């Protein structure tokens, strides 16, 4: 049994939506961050699915670049989060709002 390519796209869209939903609703910055990674990986899945459907290798190569970028983002993001942790005990996004107004 072959699974139609569009199913992969749907799964990817679901994952992307889930990631976005997570970023929007979660208060814990680490979880927000994880959700962000989920979004990126959902895009990877989209790329691979399209590459398969279009029979084009380009989409697969793109995934590599996205992976690299995601890794770099992880490094910097964690660095910033660690810095926040060190100064205050909280990891809740809603507490970080002294720049308002």
């Amino acid at each position: 049994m072959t699974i139609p390519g569009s199913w992969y796209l749907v799964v990817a869209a679901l994952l992307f939506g889930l990631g976005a939903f997570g970023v929007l609703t979660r208060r814990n910055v680490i979880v927000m961050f994880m959700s962000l990674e989920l979004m990126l990986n959902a895009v990877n899945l989209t790329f691979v699915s399209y590459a398969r459907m279009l029979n084009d290798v380009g989409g697969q190569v793109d995934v590599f670049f996205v992976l690299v970028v995601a890794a770099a983002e992880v490094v910097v993001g964690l660095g910033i989060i660690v810095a926040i942790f060190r100064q205050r005990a909280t990891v809740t996004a809603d507490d970080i709002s002294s720049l308002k107004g």
Partner: protein
Amino acid sequence: MAQYLPIVIMLVLGGVFAAGSFIGSGLLAPKRPHRAKLAPYECGIVPRSEPPERFPVRFFLVAMIFIIFDIEIIFLYPFAAAAGELGTFGVIEVAGFALVVFIAFAYLVANGALSWGPSRKQSYRVVEERLASKVPTGVRGE
């Protein structure tokens, strides 16, 4: 509108799935709460705020260094798969790529990012303080 059907389905399914998983976990998870169970400690003063979590930073540093090599492998593996066909051109390109990563690595080592063993705790603390006070951690991991 037929052409948008996949998109609409995607959106709807995305929403339903996202919401459903939250609702589902709320409904399905066994919940028999009582006060003592909700309190972080069963005796003593009820804390007013969340206790700070312990957060060992050094693992992040290690993880970041790991990521550098992890990423290097991502590019090296496809190169290896087609190294023969790519020939000299490929070797030169990959060497350039490795050189860049190596310089970043040399910078890390020079700044003491790898000296995290217990025996050299002293020097590690220096790095840690520097990270905390001046330069964000990300700089080291780049």
